[in-house]
């Protein structure tokens, strides 16, 4: 199976880190071939940043994601720039607090930023909530692999918080909230 996942949001949300964690999870713990890329520029600070992961059973040659089957979108501008034209059978996870439009493909709204702030007290873990949701709402990555990759990637002392965020995300992801 091959998956092309695209993340977008604004700078500071950890859009690239999300992709890195997903990539690590798939490569190291689901034993897949993975290529992770991103677009970034100074303008990305104010505007929309984007990162992408290809997960495949076979070696990945052409490395760029051109037509993702899975989206994780965390800002309205990100939606407009990188998520407005998904293919029909794609699945889009979106932060329902920050993305106001809705796509033409199936989607799951996750109130990640709100939950991160209100329930977990740290807005910064919104991206981990989205990753958790990704693992429960799509076949892209296994929860086990994701958990291990998160533990590898987050700063010491924040493991518990991040795992909690992931779990919450998984719950929100299974619950749906989709179109």
């Amino acid at each position, binding site marked *: 199976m091959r998956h092309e996942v695209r993340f977008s949001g604004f700078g500071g949300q950890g859009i690239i880190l999300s992709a890195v964690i997903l990539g690590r999870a798939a490569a*190291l713990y689901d034993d897949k071939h993975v*290529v*992770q*890329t991103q677009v970034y*520029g100074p303008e990305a600070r104010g505007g929309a940043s984007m990162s992408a992961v290809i997960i495949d059973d076979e070696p990945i040659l052409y490395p760029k994601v051109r037509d993702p089957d899975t989206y994780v979108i965390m800002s309205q501008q990100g939606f407009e720039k990188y998520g407005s034209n998904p293919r029909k059978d794609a699945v889009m996870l979106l932060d329902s607090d920050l993305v106001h439009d809705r796509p033409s493909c199936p989607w799951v709204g996750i109130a990640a930023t709100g939950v991160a702030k209100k329930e977990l007290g740290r807005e910064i873990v919104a991206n981990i909530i989205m990753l958790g949701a990704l693992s429960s709402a799509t076949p892209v990555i296994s929860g086990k692999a994701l958990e291990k990759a998160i533990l590898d990637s987050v700063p010491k002392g924040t493991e518990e918080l991040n795992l909690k965020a992931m779990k919450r995300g998984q719950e929100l992801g299974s619950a749906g909230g989709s179109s």
Partner: protein
Amino acid sequence: MQGNIASAEGALAAGCTFFGGYPITPSTEVAEHMAARMPKIKGSCFIQMEDEIASMAAIIGAAWTGARSMTATSGPGFSLMMENIGYAVMTETPCVLVNIQRGGPSTGQPTMGAQGDMMQVRFGSHGDYSIIALCPSSVQECFDLTAKAFNLADRFRTPVFLMADEVIGHMREKLEIPDSVEIVRPKTLPEGMLPFTPGPDGVPGFAPFGTGRYTHVTGLTHDERGYPDTTNPARHDALVRRLVSKIEDARHEIADYTIVNEDAEYVFVCYGAPVRTVKEVVDKRKVPKTGYLQLRIVWPFPEELLKRFPKCRAFIVPEMNLGMIVREVGRHVKIPVIPVSRIGGELHTPEDLIEAVKIAESTT
């Protein structure tokens, strides 16, 4: 792991103990990784210099103490290094430069990939000279070729360039780090031999500072003792021709490449990121009559390899520039050579290359 980090790790695996650099997108992660790793390695030094000119100077100075030394930069910084690159060539200083190419000219597109410095690396400093330039197309190659660059630098006593690009430098893939990498240090200067007397391969032995050989090193035209002799045409002619031929004459030994499908009629000549698309087209999609020559070492240009495709009707050269290495291919063959240029940061798509094959078919 990211290509840039893999490159830093490749250097460390090869025993690099001195890094002098100056931050610049999209190469900065190389320096940042070195800054994190080197302070923990005894006898190693990471130093952020005041600019790229100083970075290049510092790694040359470090190389003369016998250290394996390296810097990393991108276009604007690379341009600033040109004078001291010429100095490294002239003084036969082994050192490694990583250039993570971005969109130029000028500040251009700091965060987008390109291969626009491929002629600069060969001709960017004043005067006649030759260098060795490697181009990785995967994170694994970033590691392997960086390590290899140090061996080539020492073997030929010359600056060696890892000419990567933003696409590969910022891409993350799995990297397998070997238990150890091959390390070939320079020949030592035999007792009684002058410090710039070449061996039979045109390369002099190396006597780093502190070994009591009292070497005088100068960027002026010099004799075998290293003393300036700047008005003697024969001296200059002999020195500069040797500096060039020690590399050019060894192009066979140096060449590092992959050939797929020698029977191909349409042959891609490729290096760096576009190799990925070429492989997608040839290896995966198996577009008929196509094959490729992947150059992991672009300079010295191994022109003989072009002869390895006896049925070739046209060479197709996809580059992320307006056509640089295609000029070199064109000089050496009489059949059509088709450039496929992409600039602006986007890698060629497989469709781009399939289209080029069609054009080649229709014109040959």
